[in-house]
Structures are given as structure tokens and as C-alpha cells.
């Protein structure tokens, strides 16, 4: 498009904007946020398991556990919001991040099950932690399945369009 001297060249320049987009789309930052979210969820699950398996605690300890769980939930909300609205996950990012989620929640659940099976006095704790982990694995797997389906449909559509237009994908 022709630019008149009145309007001038676009600012920032196209090249500068493309550079900015490249850093905005960085996978590394998204992996860091996803790992932080998973760590937060796993720590939250551990705290909930400890709290649930220690019934005879003084009131102040209950309050402390409650605060820790609230803190974990708050962080989870902030990190999920960041991944949905700020460092937005595009279709391919979602597949990668949900894969990470399945792997790490699976690892946590396996660890909890091993703990419950091999350490008699920690059986209850391990059982509750494994139940929390199992729920997280299920959610992560469902998200991963949805992400893969969406990505596959987008790739198929892009391929079909490229063929129709006679361009390379």
C-alpha cells in the first residue's frame, strides 16, 4: 500500500513488530509458566494430603494449612490466567504444554502410589496424594486430547487450503 508523506512510514516498523512478535511467541516462556503451574498444583496436592491425613492438629495449624491451600489456589488462578490471556497458548503450544502436564502429574501420582505401597506409616498420606494426582492426570489428559484434536483439525484445514491455493505449507 502506498504511504503518503502525511501519514509517514509505520511506527514501529514492520521488522521491529515482527521481532517483538517473535519474543511474544517464545515457547520457552510458556514452558516456564506451565512448569510453575504444575509445581504449584503438585505442592497444593501435597499440602491438601497432609492436611487431610492429620486430623488431630491444633487450630493454628489448621489455619496455616488453610492459608497455604489458599495461596496455592491463588497462584494457580494467576498462572492459568497468564497462559490464557497474556502468554496465550496457540494450538501447537497447547499440545506441548498439556503433554508436559500429563507427564509431570503422572510422575507425581506414581511417586505417591509408590510411597503408599512401600511406607506403611505414610499409606494414608500417599493414598490421598495419589487420588489428587489421579484427578490432575485425568484433567491433563482431557486437555491434551482436546488440544491434539484442535491442532489436528487446524493442520488439516491449513493443508487443504494450501493445496487449493497451490502454495507450500
Amino acid at each position: 500500500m502506498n504511504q503518503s508523506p502525511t501519514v509517514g512510514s509505520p511506527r514501529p516498523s514492520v521488522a521491529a513488530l515482527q521481532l517483538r512478535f517473535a519474543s511474544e511467541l517464545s515457547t520457552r516462556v510458556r514452558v516456564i509458566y506451565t512448569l510453575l503451574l504444575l509445581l504449584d498444583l503438585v505442592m497444593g496436592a501435597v499440602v491438601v494430603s497432609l492436611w487431610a491425613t492429620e486430623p488431630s492438629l491444633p487450630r493454628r495449624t489448621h489455619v496455616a494449612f488453610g492459608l497455604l491451600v489458599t495461596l496455592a489456589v491463588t497462584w494457580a488462578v494467576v498462572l492459568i490466567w497468564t497462559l490464557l490471556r497474556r502468554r496465550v497458548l496457540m494450538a501447537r503450544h497447547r499440545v506441548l504444554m498439556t503433554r508436559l502436564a500429563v507427564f509431570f502429574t503422572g510422575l507425581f501420582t506414581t511417586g505417591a502410589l509408590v510411597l503408599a505401597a512401600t511406607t506403611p506409616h505414610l499409606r494414608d498420606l500417599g493414598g490421598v496424594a495419589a487420588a489428587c494426582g489421579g484427578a490432575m492426570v485425568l484433567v491433563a489428559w482431557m486437555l491434551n486430547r482436546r488440544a491434539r484434536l484442535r491442532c489436528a483439525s487446524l493442520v488439516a484445514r491449513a493443508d487443504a487450503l494450501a493445496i487449493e491455493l497451490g502454495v507450500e505449507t
Partner: protein
Amino acid sequence: MMKRPNRDPEKCSEALKRRQQLELELLVTRCQLGEQQGFDQLVERWHPPLWAYVSSMTGDPAVAEEVLQEGWLRILRGIGRLREPARLQAWLYSIVRRTFMDRLRDRYRLKRFEPIDEEPPGVEPPADLDWEERDHLQRSVGELSLADRETLVLFYLRELQLEEVAEILDIPIGTVKSRLHRARRALRKSLTQKGVQR
């Protein structure tokens, strides 16, 4: 027997329109997948017209730059949720316009907003005008109200369809037509006063 090449202009323009729509859809799909190349193409194709639009609205390159930077970030964050790729053009303009309006609202809230009347907003006048006529036209467009100016810019200078302008401005088509009518009348009056006859 050899077939005659299709030279029907209506059919050619239909085919061209269809191709453009498919290209848009492919571009949006690539962006939704998260392909860097897709975003590069999006910026390459749409940054200059969006810049011209924002510049004509603000008249201040520094403000236009800020609005556009924020607008592009919103585009990047929102393109994954765009369900109808054919609406890409209207969607891009409406996001940039919303960003500009949010900025205006912020400035009003802070009571720091000063109307820009010394330097009229820059527009791209038709190339066949001489420098004096171009200057008069720019000043006259700059004197229009913001609502009339943005309607005029989108319809005549950015060459969008009435439906697209209505969608971007979030107003009925009838209102777009009445704004265009008012803007044309005001422009004609202003240009006549400045001695421009055509």
C-alpha cells in the same frame, strides 16, 4: 477444440475474491497454530493500513505508535479465538479502534486530554490533487468530529464495505450512511470556504 479463456470480468472478480478469502483463512489458521511465519505475514500485510488508519484518527505519530503496539498485542492474544477468518479485516480494525478508544477514555479520566486542533490528523489524500488541495483536504478532514472522521476514513480511504465499517464501529449501517452524508456535506462546505472547487 480449444476452450476460450474465461474473460468474464464478473467471474474473474468472483474467483479473485474467493482466492483472497482462502488466503485470509490460511493466514489465520497458521497464526492459530502458532506459526511465526504466519504472524510475520499478518504484520507485513496489515501493519501499514492499520498505521494509516490510526494516524488519521490521532494525528500524533507518537500516540499512533503506542495505540498500534497495544493493538497488535491484543491481536496476537485474541487471534486464537477468531472463529470466522473471513472477518479478519473488520476484526483487526475493530481491535485497533477499541484500543484507541480505551486510550481516549483513559486520557479523559485523567483530565489530561487536549484536543488536537493545531495539527490536523494526517490522512492520505488522493494522489491526483496538487499540494495545496491536499493540504486543504487534510485540514478539512481534521476539522470533522471524531465519529464522522473515522467513518469517512474507513469507508473512503481504507475502502472498506459499509457492512465492515458498521461492524468495526459497532453501529447500524443506517448510522454509517448518515455519518458519511454529514461528513461529505461538512467536507464540501469546508473545502468551498477554502476555495477548492472540485
